[in-house]
């Protein structure tokens, strides 16, 4: 049986973890080993902005040991991701270089949205169980050390995904700086999260009841997946029973909690704080059921690796979930929030993708590029909410300030730039200079996709839905765009050159617009 051995390393806020997996089409993703080491990197970086030298040494020592373990399993590949603790370190680049030199392990830093997307993927990889739950209104709550991500699902589609602070480790650190009595703790936790949560509820939930919570965390999930609550289905508990359980913890000392729950005493504070936050969320959202699938970031990494390398059988559970659709749903949600009119962007989406599909092979553009283009098309009008005159710049700013689950920071910058340059003058790489975080490759991607989106814009300037169908062909170094429509295309035909110049500059092919009138049956 052919299989790959893969190691996933998560450099988290309070724990360094490595999971070793065997991935095969026959057995799917099988966890072989799970090594965890407690190291509170977040305690340093959240409050001092840097990770202390001692902690860096400790981290390097453990990562070197991980290298040894990987060797012993003869792993075929590995991926190491750092999350908020590394992300929030001022000198993260230097730090990562140091780690690479000392241990040979290359750590990529995940943006919050990428991290949450992987977390989310790890749960979605549970397949049917996940699908069944998100058919009802569901909040996916991912409690991290630094922040909490709440994603809302309704009828199988992602409504929104928001990041709120503080996460559990940050909260614990903040609490240590205050003096309070033990009976005040629950109120304090409520107060610390209520502002963000209540705004979230007001903006995205309203009076609606969120029936389910899918929980992803490191502590409460342990309890829900253990035998303590005596639930019928592993990991699932009725919200009322959970609230009762949290209330029962109030009377217990931490050692007693540790013994009865089977959790190391050092983790009890974080468990209790997480439990209190969840209790509050249940109250705010009116939740009936809580499900903790008990997966972690490493599982998401393994899933991503398997997916990328096509290691899983097509019918394997989890593959059925359309993650791209979630990202698109998220973008549409941003549009809704900024009152962007859907029909204005729907046509642009269609024409841009048609052009892309025609060109992708020749210009070696990927499936992911297609998604970025589609996102840009969807979001191209969102800035109108701020300024009708400066749509491009306003849209750019909105996109850059909004989490789009599943996109890396660079990808978000690409999408925002495409939107911006669809109406603004294009800044050439040379003039961007040091201002940009984008590399050459990303820049070229922006140029290509901007050219496409500008061209698609040129096909329906008045946004009246003139272009029902677009056909593309080539004639002697020209790209013929045949728009099937009976609408008056005078404006588009007249101004087409303005929108096609950049396209010609980028692809070195001249686009030509032609109209084909549609003759319906019975029409003479």
């Amino acid at each position, binding site marked *: *049986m052919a*299989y790959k*051995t893969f190691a996933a390393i998560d450099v988290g806020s309070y*724990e360094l973890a490595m999971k070793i997996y*065997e991935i*095969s089409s026959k*057995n799917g993703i*099988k966890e*072989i*080993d*799970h*090594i*965890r*080491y*407690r190291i509170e990197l977040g305690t340093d970086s959240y409050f001092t902005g840097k990770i202390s030298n001692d902690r860096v040494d400790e981290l390097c020592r453990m990562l070197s*040991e991980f290298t*040894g373990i990987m*060797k*012993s*399993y*003869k792993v075929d590949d590995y991926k190491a991701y750092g999350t908020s603790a590394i992300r929030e370190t001022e000198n993260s680049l230097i730090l990562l270089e140091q780690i690479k030199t000392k241990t040979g392990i290359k750590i990529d830093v995940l943006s919050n949205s990428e991290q949450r997307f992987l977390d989310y993927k790890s749960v979605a990889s549970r397949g049917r169980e996940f699908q069944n739950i998100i058919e009802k209104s569901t909040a996916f709550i991912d409690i991290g050390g630094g922040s909490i991500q709440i994603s809302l699902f309704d009828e199988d589609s992602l409504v929104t995904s928001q990041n709120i602070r503080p996460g559990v480790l940050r909260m614990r650190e903040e609490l240590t700086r205050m003096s309070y009595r033990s009976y005040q703790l629950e109120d304090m936790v409520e107060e610390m999260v209520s502002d963000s949560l209540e705004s979230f509820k007001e903006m995205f939930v309203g009076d609606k009841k969120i029936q389910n919570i899918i929980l992803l965390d490191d502590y409460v999930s*342990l309890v829900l*997946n*253990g035998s303590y609550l005596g639930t019928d289905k592993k990991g699932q508990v009725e919200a009322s029973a959970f609230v009762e359980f949290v209330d029962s913890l109030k009377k217990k000392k931490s050692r007693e909690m540790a*013994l009865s729950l*089977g959790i*190391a005493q050092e983790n009890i504070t974080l468990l209790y704080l997480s439990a209190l936050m969840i209790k509050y969320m249940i109250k705010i959202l009116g939740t009936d059921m809580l499900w903790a699938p*008990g997966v972690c970031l490493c599982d998401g990494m393994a899933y991503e690796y398997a997916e990328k390398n096509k290691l899983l059988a097509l019918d394997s559970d989890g593959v059925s979930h359309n993650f791209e659709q979630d990202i698109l749903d998220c973008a549409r949600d941003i549009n809704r929030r900024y009152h962007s009119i859907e029909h204005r962007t729907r046509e642009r989406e269609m024409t841009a993708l048609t052009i892309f599909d025609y060109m992708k092979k020749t210009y070696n553009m990927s499936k992911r590029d297609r998604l970025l283009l589609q996102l840009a098309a969807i979001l191209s009008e969102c800035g109108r909410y701020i300024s009708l005159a400066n749509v491009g710049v306003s849209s750019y700013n909105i996109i850059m300030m909004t989490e789009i689950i599943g996109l890396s920071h660079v990808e978000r910058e690409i999408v925002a730039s495409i939107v911006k340059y669809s109406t603004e003058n294009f800044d050439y790489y040379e003039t961007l200079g040091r201002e940009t975080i984008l590399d050459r490759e990303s820049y070229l991607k922006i140029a290509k996709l901007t050219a496409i989106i500008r061209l698609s814009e040129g096909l329906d300037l008045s946004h009246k839905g003139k272009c029902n169908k677009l056909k593309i062909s080539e004639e002697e170094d020209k790209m013929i765009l045949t728009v099937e429509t009976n609408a008056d295309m005078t404006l588009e035909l007249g101004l087409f050159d303005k929108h096609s110049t950049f396209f010609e500059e980028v692809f070195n092919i001249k686009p030509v617009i032609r109209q084909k009138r549609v003759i319906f049956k019975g029409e003479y």
Partner: protein
Amino acid sequence: MEVKKTDYSKPEYYCNRELSWIAFNNRILGEARDKSLPLFERIKFLSITASNLDEFFMVRVASLKDMVNAGYDKKDIAGMTPTEQLEEVNKATHELVNMQYSTYNRSLLPLLAQNGLMVVEHHEELTKEECDFVDRYFQDNVYPVLTPMAVDSSRPFPLIRNKSLNLGALVSRKEEKGRRHLFNRKPVQGKELEFATVQVPSVIPRIVQLPIAENGTKRVILLEQIIERNMDKLFLNYNIECAFSFRIMRNADFAVEEEAEDLLKEIEKQLKKRQWGQAIRLEVEEGIDNRLLDIIRKELMIDERDIYTIPGPLDLTFFMKMYGFSGFEHLKNKPYTPQIVPELEDGDDIFEKIREKDILLHHPYQTFAPVVDFIKQAARDPQVLAIKQTLYRVSGNSPIISALAQAAENGKQVSVLVELKARFDEENNIVWAKKLEKAGCHVIYGLVGLKTHCKITLVVRREEEGIRRYVHLGTGNYNDATAKLYTDLGILTCNEAIGEDATAVFNMLSGYSEPLGWNHLALAPLWLKDKFLYLIDREKQNAIKKRPARIVAKMNSLCDPDIIKALYKAAAAGVKIQLIVRGICCLRTGIEGINDNIEVRSIVGNFLEHARIFYFENAGNPELYMSSADWMPRNLERRVEILFPVLNPKLKDEVWHVLEVQLADTKKAQFLKSDGSYAKMIVKEEELRSAQEEFCDEYTAMAAGGKKAVQQARTFKPEYNQSL
């Protein structure tokens, strides 16, 4: 109705653990006094009582003394302060020693003589030829290694090493005309006595065989007698006024600074210190000159009550060497050869066999070779990626160590946790740890604050279907030498869930966090005690609900107060509890209304009972576990121990059979009585059953005829009415 609550913590419900230990040593002494046993087996048991007592003093009595010196007066579970315990221990030990020497003098010595082995107790009893022989022996072999030391104002009292046998003498200078004192140059008047001592060298055999007498009797003499006879040759300018042997025991319970940068060096340093610990026991030869005794006592600062006057040779452990004498096989038990394991024949691919089914190993009835082979095969198997093992006590020249080193040299990842703090094996373990490191193994020197006592080996193999983990879990050490004497059980399995747990165990031992959850294993000091308390309580709840409830537990020692309390509660609720506790048992029996349902037996036999097996009836769905842990606070709270379930139904039957046979033992089993003493069951000669003998027979038959035959012999054959 008001429910009467019983206070199960009352001191009268518990035995003091030190006195219980002495009772255990008395049971071993009972074997030495058992006339039905072959003579050489009896001397072996006597020797065991002596070495046990040494260890008991160095660790337990030393610790009590430390408590008394520190003014610690907290009472133990039996309600005794350290001072009270020390007094009682002293009294009981004196009685034990008296009994040891009474057995030696009145029974064993005459019997040995009758059987052609004469121990010449005093050199004065040697014949002329023998005198010539020993004097020559002294000159050639002994004299060169002796370091005689005299004490005077210019030479301080020398270091008397822990456990060493010494000869102390009072010497006076031979008369010299005009002799003057060394310092003040005044003439020395009369006979001035000085103290002199010489250590009986441990590098020379203690028993020296004399030339065979004409009647064929083998005569032996102890080395200290030869030295005593030749004392004058050691102190040439002195007259030997008197010479007597003496021996001291020192506090060996040292505390290791575990945060030390290099634990290896720290332990080496502490080991040297062991020689300097406070003297806590002085044994002197009966009839010792009071002046000599006074000097020794004062110099060693030892209490009168800690002095043991011995009516015979000091340190009876020499009997273990005598046991090895050839020519007396008729006076020993027929030697038992550990039998092959039918599932694992020579040359078998052990991994293939384990894949077929879990394999149970029962030592010493079955050979330890499969465990060694498991590691040897793993070492040379190209598919093996890693070998991980815990080592607590290993034998000298251990084949396991060699195999691990070989594996590392073959490029496998070998991680070994060598417990440097395994008491009295520290030196040995340091040697192995260094050897393994040199071979390229990743060696962990134990965990800070904990002793790693669990016995687990994990072999990770990359196979066609993916990674497969093979695990050996045992109740006894990875020691091929003791595996011939200690009864232990082990399991070889590739059960996936156990493999996952085993990986997690080694991750934890390497300093990583504990896993998010365990499949089957329970680990001390984290979860094990709670798991046991839970299992006992579950039986209690079942008894209350009138469901089948029973506990059968076999272990070496039982002294954890929480466990005992839980057992009392369970028994009071109606759980039938049968305990097979070889050594210390702080639980009492026969307390009316409290523990009528508890029965405790101890089996002391030819092999040292060492397995830990736990059976819980679980309302008709019995669960069987095995462990490296006893029910002692040190095992449950201060050591890394593993409790593992026996999952395979067939193996469950086999392990249950082990308990069943032990429960049926009427020959060696002694029952704990309400007064804390033990007594054997009175049964007719023909009804006597010895578990150890039965196992020897069973496994011999099994090896000869295959397992099937034995199993068939164990089943009942129903008879039916043929006319129907």
